């Protein structure tokens, strides 16, 4: 009898301990073009605004950023993406693994345009560094009618492959909305001023 009571007690203590430990969702994000360390570790600081965040890890070389967060107050994918953008970065991919095993990921697949209706084009876009490159390209690619967008730092040219039924000014507007002046649209000062320090191209 005493043996049985001891075994039950040990199990009860074990279960109580496990329940007492915080259960954490796992978050992994990849961002493009982390520049100087002062800017890159700014991303980390931005996420530390979420109280309770744990095991924050960032690798400037690969752009990998990960952390854990209590599952009883989960962050949505939109919150995560927005926080990355608030820090001035462009999320390439993101995944959340919830404590119950459910996995969410970003981005979703987008439709690929009909090859027969494509044309090549170029826009002059102002930028300063690899982070700008990532942001400019992501802004252009956010329109599903753009199949390819490659920005060159030296020439300040964005080379596009896009549907014939979209105009360059539309792309220019998307790029200006994320802070980059271009030959069609100038970014508003408020948006420009929010860019990370290494991206401030206006002299």
């Amino acid at each position, binding site marked *: 009898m005493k043996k049985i009571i001891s075994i039950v007690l040990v199990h009860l203590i074990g279960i109580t301990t496990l329940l007492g430990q915080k259960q954490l969702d796992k978050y992994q994000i990849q961002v493009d073009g982390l520049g100087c360390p002062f800017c890159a570790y700014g991303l980390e*600081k931005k996420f530390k605004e979420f109280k309770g965040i744990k095991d924050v890890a960032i690798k400037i070389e690969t752009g990998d950023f990960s952390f854990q967060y209590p599952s009883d107050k989960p962050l949505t994918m939109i919150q995560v993406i927005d926080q990355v953008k608030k820090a001035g970065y462009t999320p390439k991919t993101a995944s959340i693994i919830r404590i119950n095993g459910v996995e969410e990921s970003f981005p979703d697949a987008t439709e690929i345009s009909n090859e027969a209706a494509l044309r090549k084009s170029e826009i002059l876009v102002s930028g300063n560094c690899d982070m700008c490159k990532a942001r400019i390209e992501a802004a252009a690619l956010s329109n599903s009618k753009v199949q390819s967008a490659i920005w060159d730092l030296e020439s300040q040219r964005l080379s596009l492959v896009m549907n014939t039924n979209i105009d360059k000014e539309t792309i220019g507007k998307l790029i200006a909305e994320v802070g980059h002046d271009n030959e069609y649209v100038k970014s508003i000062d408020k948006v420009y001023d929010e860019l990370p320090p290494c991206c401030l191209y206006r002299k």
Partner: protein
Amino acid sequence: MRKVLYIIIGVVLLQSCKQKSTSWTFDHEIQLEKVKPVGIAIVNDTLWVSDAEGNRIVQIGEKGYILNEKTGFDRPMHITDFKGGLAIPEYGKDVITLLYNGTTETLKSPSLDAPAAIDFYEDTYGIADFYHHKVHFFDGTKWISIGEKGKENGQFHYPTDIHISDEFLYVADAYNHRIQIFDKEGKFVKIMAADLEINAATGVWGNDEEVFLTDFENHRVIILNTSGEVKQILSEELSNPIDLIVFKNKLYVLNFKLGTISVFKRS
């Protein structure tokens, strides 16, 4: 007439002797072992480097091997020597940690938001406060707050480094792409290097004759005289230079992304 000529020649020769050589040439590279170097300091004739990604500071031997390591920091940035030990700005923790005489303590300072650098001169010291766009200077008796966010004289756009001489504070005003100089009362004196198309002025160091500045995105080191005139621009064997120091007539430049130190000698 001949006498006058000899006097003129004599004066010219004397002047040229007074001017020391300012030519730096690349000597060798030190490859570091898995270190992402951000700050460099000399302590007791040895090289110490901050590894912000590894959250540690490491003592480096001549061939780049790690001789000693101290861990547990939160993004250590531009370090400096302090009383035979080190002063470490912890960017992630918003404090300056002092390691000396076998002890660890936190420097009492105004509230910081991502301290990027600290420097000492006798009983004075200054901190580059990155997200506050300020420099905090302790003049021996009180703190003086210098600057605010902006692009005008006396304003900063993300200051990342500071060097203090007997007369002045030299501040790497990183994203205004220039050096700003202040006196020990915190008054703006002048700007240097603003017309050199710098892209991210991340590290500054100086002595009686020269001021050195890292141009991070353009992969250059700019060497100026104390009047702000360019003496030399180094670009050989540099890749995202982030901090530098001169020690025993050698210039040590940290290359951030490559994880190397480029060493230049004065020729």
